[in-house]
């Protein structure tokens, strides 16, 4: 059985949109961060779907390799981001982004 790439692309588009909406409407830093991860992973899905349309040409490999890079980078972003969020939670007892907002001008 073969799922047409267009279906996969549509799903990835929906996931990306959900990620963007999540970033824009949620106020908890961790949930915002989860939404960002959703955006990155929807891009991975799109890359894989495109790679499948190009297979078996060499160019399909670029998509596959890129996915691994995105996964690795997302992991390092988690490391830095969660450390930051923990540090802020320690001093503010909250990670609501509206409460971390004193810089104005």
């Amino acid at each position, binding site marked *: 059985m073969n799922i047409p790439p267009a279906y996969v692309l549509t799903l990835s588009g929906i996931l990306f949109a959900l990620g963007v909406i999540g970033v824009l409407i949620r106020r908890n830093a961790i949930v915002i961060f989860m939404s*960002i991860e959703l955006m990155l992973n929807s891009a991975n899905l799109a890359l894989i779907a495109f790679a499948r349309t190009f297979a078996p040409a060499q160019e399909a490999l670029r998509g596959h390799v890129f996915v691994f890079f*995105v996964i690795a*980078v997302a992991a390092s972003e988690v490391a830095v981001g969660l450390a930051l969020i923990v540090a802020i939670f320690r*001093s503010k007892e909250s990670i609501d982004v509206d409460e971390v907002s004193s810089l104005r001008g």
Partner: protein
Amino acid sequence: MDWQDFLSVLPFIIVAGWATILLLVDLWIPANRKGITAGLAVLGLIAAIAAVISRFGIEREAFDGMIIVDGFSSFLQLLFLGVGLIAIAQAYDYLRRRDIERGEYYILLLYSLSGMLLMASAGDLIVVFLAVELLSIPLYVLAAFAIPQADSEESALKYFLLGAFASGFLVYGIALVYGSTGTTALSGMVAAIASAETTPVLLFIGSGMILVGLGFKVAAVPFHMWTPDVYQGAPTSVTSFMSVGAKAGGFAALLRIFISALPGAAVMWMPLTMWIAALTMAWGNIAAISQTNIKRMLAYSSIAHAGYIFMALPAAATPEVAPEAVRAALFYLVTYAITNLGAWGVVLAMEKAEGSGLTIEDYSGLGKKRPALALAMALFMLSLTGVPPTVGFMGKFYLFRAVIDANLIWLALVGVVTSLISAYYYLRVIVVMYMRDGEPEVRSEALLNSTIILTAFGTFFFGILPGLLIKMINQVGLLDLLR
């Protein structure tokens, strides 16, 4: 792949490898002598500069086209490494003063620099993405360097969340461009677009998303919301580095992707970049007027300058003007780097230990108390406005000329009018320094002073003799990008 490929990325290997070694060495350096780490970091940068200079004039593709070594990359790498040297000199005393001196600062700075070096020679969208992240992630940590101070925390969180959000757009954009052209290699893209084997809709949305992602990095309107808060909250030495380095890195990618890989799709991105440039110039300058904090004022000023550099993109959409536009953009990047580093240097000298001394009013009486420093600041402000005989004027001159040559008269007019508006808030600093009485408390630190003297000299020197820099850009910075 052979050993020559590794030579092609030698500056990057030196900086990234040296940072990793320093990470270990730093463990044995006592906490009160972190100056040693700074010194060692400088040694690494000097070695990298030597590596860049040693391959001047060489053009080649390495790692199967992933890395491009050409004049464009060498020129920008020299700029980045120079910015790195000044950033370390500016940070050294400032970190001690604010009591946040830790060796990791210099190491993170090196890592971020290595991302910029990679960005300059990226020949593939995968490398562009990696370089953007390598450039940004250490900067998130640097912005948080003064934790647990609230300002630094807030700055880092905002920078991190919005930076990662932008990365999401960048990756999705790259995925769509890949889907449309069937490749991620910049050189392959030109061929794919020329042979019309693309899906235009995907290419349009994809390049638009790349524009959004990189627009965040260079702080272009409407993706600039984070800039004032992040620049204000981060330790000033970090702000100085990221306002110049991250922006130049972003523009390196923008120029490379849109001008060298997607010229065939210029019809699609030309109107977008044109409006972004116009909006950025207008909003950056207008919002800067009402600022009372000098860090916020310079943040809006840096948004405005991103708008000026952005003008090079719509101008380069006209193929005949493209070389001139890229030349002008490179010149403007140097201009902006020299002037802005100098202005931030003065801000560093004025900042007091507890973080006050940052309003424009605090500069009252500086003209009497420290005439030389006030003169340097006046020079930087004039250069940012674009008044001759400073380098800022030459930068704007070349840029506007390229825009007019591309027949975008109205865009050049927006640039000129917004420059006039900007005179209001830049000159206000000069007025406050010379015409108000006050007793400013000013630092005099040897390293910081030398960076201010150096940048002030550069601002003046290249303003009078821009030919030297132009010659260098013509010879080196050109324009293998447009092969």
